[in-house]
């Protein structure tokens, strides 16, 4: 590639727009967050005080707990459904699979404010399902409270399922029919095949998908905010609140909270890489 006298560096100028964009809107802002997180409020120097303060306040503890619980539960349920969905898709006819994929594709963008609206109409205080359950006397649904942790989990599961299924389908394509046939020849039942062969092979993909789901739900907050406005402590809602709107901006605390959220998300991704035994995501 290197040629005598050909200044390939001349072409480096085409990298300039990219570098400017990334520096201005990604690298420098993130570094600022990191610096501010360890800066005393309205002062200079280095401190861990912001973190100490956040961890000592009940509302932030609650936000952290809520975020983690919702992420874990919605990811686990989403993953479970996606597992069976992807498994079924792998053995479905190509026509069926095509329709299924089209619907996943279509619904994977369905989140945030519109999703909250749909859930209010279905499960809100006067939601269609809730009123119906009241009429037929189905208590668990009639008394369902959408504006609670359970309600948020229900809404989060909805956007986890298409994403998780789309991530798992290629993995199932890697489980070869021949293996199933060999297992069947050795008189293994289908569940035995999956327990001893299928799931161990799929392990990395399953864990990878789980970590994507965790990160996805930790950072998602449009749905939660549209449902609860400010009345529900959630990490992402608290972060935005410290920078946007309201009277006083709390840059340092907000930055510290952002760092906590970033750590949680990187933890999800690192666990993934560790278990997969290879650095970086698949390329």
């Amino acid at each position, binding site marked *: 590639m290197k040629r005598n006298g050909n200044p390939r560096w001349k072409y480096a100028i085409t990298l300039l727009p990219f570098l400017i964009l990334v520096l201005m809107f990604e690298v420098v802002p*993130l570094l600022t967050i990191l610096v501010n997180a360890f800066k005393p409020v309205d002062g200079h120097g280095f401190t861990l005080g912001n973190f100490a303060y956040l961890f000592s306040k009940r509302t932030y503890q609650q936000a952290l707990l809520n975020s983690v619980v919702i992420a874990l539960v919605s990811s686990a349920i989403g993953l479970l459904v996606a597992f069976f969905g992807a498994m079924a898709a792998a053995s479905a006819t190509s026509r069926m699979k095509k329709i299924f994929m089209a*619907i996943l594709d279509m619904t994977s963008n369905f989140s945030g404010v*519109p999703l909250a609206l749909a859930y209010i109409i*279905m499960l809100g205080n006067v939601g269609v399902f809730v009123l119906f359950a009241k009429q037929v006397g189905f208590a668990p649904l009639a008394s369902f409270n959408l504006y609670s942790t359970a309600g948020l989990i229900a809404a989060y599961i909805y956007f986890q399922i298409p994403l998780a299924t789309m991530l798992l389908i290629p993995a199932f394509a890697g489980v070869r029919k021949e293996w199933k046939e060999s297992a069947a020849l050795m008189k293994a039942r289908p569940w035995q095949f999956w327990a001893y062969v299928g799931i161990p092979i799929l392990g990395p993909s399953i864990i990878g998908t789980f970590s994507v789901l965790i990160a996805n739900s930790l*950072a998602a907050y449009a749905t939660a905010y549209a449902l609860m406005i400010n009345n529900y402590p959630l990490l992402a809602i608290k972060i935005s609140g410290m920078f946007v709107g309201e009277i006083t901006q709390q840059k340092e605390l907000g930055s510290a909270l*952002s760092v906590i959220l970033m750590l949680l998300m990187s933890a999800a991704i690192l666990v993934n890489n560790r278990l997969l035994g290879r650095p970086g995501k698949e390329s």
Partner: protein
Amino acid sequence: MKNHKAGGNIVLVLIMVYLLVPLLLTFTFSVFGNWTSMLPKNFTLRAYEDMLATPRFFPDLLRTIIISVVPVAITVLIMLLALYTVLIFFPRLEKFLQLLCMIPYAIQGVILSVSIVSLYTRVPGFLSNRIFLLVGAYCIVILPYIFQGIRNAMRSVNMPMLIEAAEMLGASKLEAFFKVIVPNIVPGISVSALLSISMLFGDWVVIRNIAGNAYENVSILLYMTMNIVSVRTATAMFTVVFLVTLLISILVFNLQSKTEGGTSREER
């Protein structure tokens, strides 16, 4: 075996029903005046009339399209230049480029938007222009997807060979890029570009945090309508917004099945 297949189909149908119910229900809600008993009553298009009477609706729709398309166009152009140069002249930098492009994927909208807001809003001049900041933030949000799309497309056409061939025919490297490479990878790029557009189209987090009142897209309007005006009018907007995203999805799907045979395919 037959039984197993039927079971699989039941699972697929159940999931599809689960995914479609909220959409269909919200749409049904938008065309009926009363839904307090088992079945909806009083078919009416009032919600749509109310929506059309909202003076901001169409301008907001247009604004949303503009703010979804412009950052994608900018990012595609920037990424094309950067990836071309890196892959041809500085292949060792590819890992570095990839890292920079994948970070937004890990930090997502909330942190990105607040970090930009906190850094620039007090700065004088164009740097604190909310719309400028919004475009910049959007470019970063879609970086991972555009990067993947362009890189996969460039790989699938065997770029070094094409360039060599073009050079032998007397083209410069830059000419070869615009006249040979770009036309060849357009189908692969358009898929990731459209996906990015539909993602930005539905954004609410970044635009709310960065633009505040300076720029209103349909998500913001939808949010205000459902909270302040009426849920029913909001469901009509919901339906229109959904149809627009559906249109983009269909475009993507068609493009994907068209390019499937020859060029890009994400799964290996």
